């Protein structure tokens, strides 16, 4: 059961993120929702490479025994970097939308429709 805990956490985090994206109308909160989904996916990746009682994958500190998989950690790192870029860009857009529209409510930011 305790082995399943990370996966349950992943499901909960992604679920909360999707809920925020669908039902919160504050644009900043929507960006936070996307960030939450991203954290959930990252946690999932990290969990995949984890082994109980294994060493961290650092070459110079390793002397026998099992190591956790380094690949998922590299993947997570890459996806965190991408996440920083997307979050920064989204927040910059929100700031600009606020400048032009005077509101960060999703119901107001809909001049483009139809």
């Amino acid at each position, binding site marked *: 059961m305790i082995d399943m805990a990370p996966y349950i956490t992943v499901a909960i985090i992604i679920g909360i993120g999707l809920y925020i994206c669908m039902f919160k109308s504050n644009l900043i909160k929507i960006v936070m929702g996307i960030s939450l989904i991203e954290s959930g996916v990252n946690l999932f990746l990290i969990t995949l490479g984890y082994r109980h009682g294994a060493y961290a994958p*650092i*070459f*110079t500190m*390793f002397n026998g025994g099992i190591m956790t998989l380094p690949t998922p950690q590299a993947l997570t790192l890459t996806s965190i970097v991408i996440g920083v870029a997307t979050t920064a860009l989204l927040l*910059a857009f929100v700031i600009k939308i606020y400048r032009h529209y005077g509101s960060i409510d999703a119901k107001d930011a809909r001049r483009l429709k139809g």
Partner: protein
Amino acid sequence: MKPMSVIVRTMTRSLYPFILLFGAYLVVHGHLTPGGGFQGGAVAASAIALAIAAFGGTKAYHEKTLALFESGGLLFFLSLGLIGMGVAFMWNFLAGSGSLFGDPVAYGSNPGYLNTAGTIPLMNIAVGLEVVGGLGAIMLAMGSYAFDEDKEVSS
């Protein structure tokens, strides 16, 4: 926005070089310990964020310098990859060569020797420069939005 209190500003002044130093440490030791270009660069960029928040303005930084850091770092990274083209793109041509970062890697538990791993530390430095430039430019842009400065930062 007004600058923050004198306590914050004094602490920022004294902490600023150490944050940069820690960032540089993370970058340079990227091939030995957890860390590397992005993490170190992000730490260094957090110093910029701290300064912007504490002194209430972005005037101390020039967008052009940061942009130069960004493209320069990436160009350095890419040229390292292109130099290895004799065998394959990104080929580690320095590893085991005995020159810069060219010592062979020791097996087993050891404190870690800086002069190993070939092009990887160089690439870490390149990425570190790029990340300081990129994140710094983001901080600058966001800071100038937040403080309502007339200067429009367009990156």
